[in-house]
């Protein structure tokens, strides 16, 4: 499993765009990049997943450069309710670790009014 590195914390103000970058230098050919969000005292929630280039959904965008050694989660126009911990996970759909998700420390995003 590829090790991931993300900033421990980030601060932003309401209405700003937030970009959280995750480094995964040892990503394997079959690996996908997935982001989860966790609010205090709640379970993690899937946000977005991608393999290469750009993926966008109603919540966020995920930018993955050609070398795939990093990825950036982009949250447009954040609000106070986006205050949460954001986790970057890297792994494949093959292998013996059936379904096990490895969560790191994540990035604590705090949005201020």
């Amino acid at each position, binding site marked *: 499993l590829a090790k991931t590195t993300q900033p421990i914390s980030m601060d932003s103000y309401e209405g700003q765009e937030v970009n959280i970058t995750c480094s995964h230098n040892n990503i394997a050919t079959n690996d996908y990049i*997935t982001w989860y969000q966790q609010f205090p*005292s709640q*379970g*993690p929630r899937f946000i977005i997943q991608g393999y290469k280039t750009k993926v966008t959904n109603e919540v966020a965008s995920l930018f993955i450069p050609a070398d795939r050694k990093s990825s950036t989660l982009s949250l447009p126009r954040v609000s106070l309710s986006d205050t949460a911990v954001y986790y970057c996970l890297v792994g494949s*759909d*093959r292998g013996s670790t059936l*379904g*096990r998700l490895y*969560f790191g420390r994540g990035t604590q995003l705090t949005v201020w009014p």
Partner: protein
Amino acid sequence: EPEVTQTPSHQVTQMGQEVILRCVPISNHLYFYWYRQILGQKVEFLVSFYNNEISEKSEIFDDQFSVERPDGSNFTLKIRSTKLEDSAMYFCASSLSGGAVTDTQYFGPGTRLTVL
């Protein structure tokens, strides 16, 4: 939108007692998981369950832990003799298919277990 539910939301128990944490996964999902999160620490995988048997378990999931799907809807985690260090938030999750990161897991709101 379907969701994973867990009961109770908070369980307080004495050290050495048995506890059962209950989960109702999303109805058409086939893979079930338990994770835990000690206060201020990472979310840690405990066990995955498919086709009425454990698929994988972590080193945390020792003989004190067991899981069961007693009927078509519930999925339970039993801790036989609780220790102080079992105090944590326990999350149940389910997914439609199993694999690894590519299969979206849906997490419940958690049960906060406090062992005194």
